[in-house]
């Protein structure tokens, strides 16, 4: 047995603010040898991120660290600045949980990647740029040259996540700390990324500390698993061991909560295409280019008709057609699952629906009124019936508002539903999304990623909306909390009958929640239909691809798939 590459010994972290101490991590001991993948799973807010960040000493000044983190024989916690700097990015690469706020908004992707390369390698700018392009290719971002010139706000969530991964592996570190590296990725890209990480490990003997809540990813990649809860590691062991025979009650609870895609595509003959469309019952898919048409129900809450959004090119460059002729509708009480490739325009579509962006072409009708034609007060009042969960919880929360204040915001604007006291309602909402009322007075930066996401959900639900637009609302949640939120959605929906545009890359979640599914690719709607039909008998090849790539929480199955991928993609 070789000496571990990284050994955490009794690591504890406390946050001290205003004289009050919040313990975040308690006596965590973990170890990792070269070429090993250790997955850390656990409850949202259990201290996973804090533990990871403590390694590179990136915690805010309010954090108090204790214990030791021995990396390559030296204690990271006691290292001098120069030494630490060499380790950061050079020996240990870090993928941050929230990619959308992890990149500097004022520098291009290229500049930030080049910098990461040049921080530890004596290469010229040119060489570094080539390497940056190469990295983007590795993480599956097409059109690298253009991406290098783009600014962070011009990329989609999943694209940014891949940039962040590229940045972390830029200098081929010995240890990669990846905090939820695939949350914003659709299943096909996710599979590619897992492939990439696996390759890194195999080729360069990179050790990976993988923090994730996706049991499918754990099963596909990890050698060992550590389960955390309330700041402590409650169980640790070989991945097969833990997943098959969990010992701790919490682990069992966690595994029980896993939602996997149960459907698997049946090999049913695809009907012939007519007018560029294939259809079967209520299910439609495109055979050529273009989007599938939509036949909105008369009582639809939301009707999106022929929506096209073009992001204007700067200085005469041609723009990006992020959404291209998409038509969908959502009826009251219905959940429309929107799935699709990362960067396919899901968030863009959502932003138009919630009125943050005006469409280049097409109309959006909300509760019977064309929102693009409304102005001023009327438009704002209409906003009261839509609840929105944003893809990036971190930036959608005002850093200077307490979370209670943030959650209460819609009520301050439109009045609390049923005239209840906003303060009571806030407590109620916090409880609904599983947050302790003790967090009321905290500011967003004092929360974990999953906690922030739940604040966003609570805010969206505050007014009992008629339409909920949820953009990856459960991406940062561990499976048990996710299950809870999904239950919440479903029960609220039954009770209130609201419509929901549910964007997710987690097909298992979509399967459980959505009545109908729309599949987006490259800005075009390639398939639409009832959930069961689309997921079991896809018409479009891309849909099939998606379904087959969906990870399952079974190590053996995942390995098997991996081998299959290897052989099919040379």
């Amino acid at each position, binding site marked *: 047995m070789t000496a571990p590459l990284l050994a955490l010994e009794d690591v504890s972290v406390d946050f001290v603010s205003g004289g009050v101490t919040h313990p975040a991590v308690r006596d965590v001991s973990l170890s990792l040898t070269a070429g090993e993948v250790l997955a850390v799973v656990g409850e949202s807010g259990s201290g996973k991120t804090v533990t990871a960040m403590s390694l590179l000493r990136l915690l805010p000044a309010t954090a108090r660290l204790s214990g030791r983190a021995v990396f390559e024989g030296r204690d990271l916690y006691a290292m001098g600045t120069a030494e630490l700097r060499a380790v950061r990015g050079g020996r240990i690469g870090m993928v941050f949980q929230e990619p959308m706020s992890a990149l500097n908004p004022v520098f291009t992707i290229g500049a930030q990647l080049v910098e990461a390369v040049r921080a530890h390698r004596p290469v010229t700018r040119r060489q570094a740029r080539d390497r940056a392009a190469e990295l983007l290719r590795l993480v599956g971002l097409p059109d690298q040259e253009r991406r290098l010139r783009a600014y962070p*706000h011009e990329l989609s969530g999943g694209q940014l996540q891949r940039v962040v991964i590229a940045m972390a592996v830029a200098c081929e570190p010995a240890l990669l700390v990846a905090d939820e590296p695939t949350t914003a990725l659709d299943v096909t890209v996710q599979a590619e990324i897992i492939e990439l990480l696996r390759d890194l490990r195999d080729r360069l003997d990179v050790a990976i500390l993988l923090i994730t809540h996706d049991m499918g990813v754990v099963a596909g990649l990890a050698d060992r698993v550590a389960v955390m809860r309330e700041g402590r590691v409650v169980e640790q062991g070989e991945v097969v061991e833990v997943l098959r025979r969990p010992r701790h009650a919490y682990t069992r609870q966690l595994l029980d909560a896993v939602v996997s895609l149960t459907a698997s595509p049946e090999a049913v003959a695809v009907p012939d295409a007519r007018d560029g469309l294939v259809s079967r019952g209520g299910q439609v898919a495109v055979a050529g280019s273009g989007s599938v048409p939509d036949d909105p129900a008369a009582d639809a809450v939301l009707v999106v008709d022929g929506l096209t959004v073009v992001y204007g090119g700067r200085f005469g460059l041609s723009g990006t057609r992020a959404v291209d002729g998409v038509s969908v509708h959502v009826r009251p009480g219905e959940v429309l699952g929107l799935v699709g490739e990362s960067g396919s325009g899901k968030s863009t579509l959502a932003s138009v629906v919630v009125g943050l962006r005006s469409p280049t072409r097409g109309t959006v009708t909300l509760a019977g009124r064309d929102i693009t034609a409304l102005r001023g007060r009327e438009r704002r009042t209409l906003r009261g019936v839509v609840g929105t969960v944003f893809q990036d919880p971190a930036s959608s929360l005002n850093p200077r508002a307490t979370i209670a204040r943030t959650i209460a915001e819609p009520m301050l604007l439109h009045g609390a539903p049923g005239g209840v006291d906003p303060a009571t309602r806030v407590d109620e909402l916090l409880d609904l999304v599983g947050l302790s009322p003790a967090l009321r007075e905290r500011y967003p930066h004092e929360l974990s990623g999953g906690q922030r996401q739940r604040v966003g959900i609570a805010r969206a639900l505050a007014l009992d909306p008629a339409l909920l637009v949820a953009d990856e609302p459960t991406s940062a949640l561990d499976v048990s909390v996710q299950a809870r939120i999904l239950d919440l959605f479903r029960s609220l929906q039954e009770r209130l009958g609201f419509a929901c545009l549910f964007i997710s890359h987690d097909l298992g979640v979509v399967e459980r929640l959505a009545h109908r599914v729309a599949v987006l690719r490259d800005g075009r709607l390639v398939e639409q239909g009832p959930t069961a039909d689309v997921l079991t008998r896809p018409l479009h090849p891309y849909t099939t691809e998606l379904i087959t790539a969906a990870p399952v929480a079974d190590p053996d199955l995942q390995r098997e798939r991996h081998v299959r991928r290897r052989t099919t993609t040379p």
Partner: protein
Amino acid sequence: MRTAKFIGVRLAGALLVLFIVGFCTYAVFYLVPADPALASCGRPCTEQNLALARDFMGFGDPWWRQFLDFVGGIATGRTFGAGATAITCEAPCFGYSFQQNTEVLDLIGERLPVTFSLAAGAALLWLVTGVGAGVVAALRRGTPLDRIALAVSVAGVSAPVYLVGLLGILLFGFTLDVVPVGGYVDFATSPVDWAWRLALPWAVLAFAHAAVYTRLTRSQMLDTLDEDYIRTARAKGLTETKVVGKHALRNVLLPVVTVFGVDLGSLLGGAVITERVFGLPGLGGLLIDAVNQRDLPLLLGCTLFAAFLIVTANVLVDLCYGALDPRARLS
């Protein structure tokens, strides 16, 4: 296309601003209880002489007519008086100063290099020291260094420039005798002398102006240092200098550049007191003379010129926004 439109709108805006500034100056000037012709009337002044002087200088007409004449003069040039002593002022004619016997444009042209030298050097100095001190103050928040930076900044804004200039001359010019006192040497004549003579004025101006940069930088820096992307930059293994000097600073610069635009614009219009104390023949002195002597053409010329610089500086600053922060790009 969009860029062209943007520039078009800005250009039209700039012209509009200049027109309004000119018009307001003209209008207000006629509220000022003084007759510009009085200075050209001599002593003893009689009604008749006054009327003559007025007529010759073109002050006989109603004020709006005069303003139109002025605007017309920019396009077509003007002639004052008639016969052998007539003064012709070629287009573009920004007026003729009767007190100084020169076309306003020439006067401004003569003074511009001085003011420009003064402003550019001082601006550079205060930008560097101000932002530098701000960064240090932010990084060393709450330490004596931070407190000293605050005290110095406050002293800088509170102390009258005139006083600082005078004390500077007394200390460095006479007591220590390290810099020459006053006077201006062309850059072309002797770059060393040029810089040497301007060193003290630069320092004085910088001392007076740096405060707001220091404080703004400090405050914005403190905000920025807590952002997630700073954490990312650190995680890359960048040196602290790079993290702060590049990643944080770039996000801090927006308000700093804004103040800089406003300051530089107005400074290029003349740093009256500094020019005066150091005997530098710059635009500030010209403008003040124009005001004091009720030299309307000169006043108008200087004002328009200063406004032009301010508008230009602000347009440049606006253009900078996009480069500094892509999110601030005007949509």
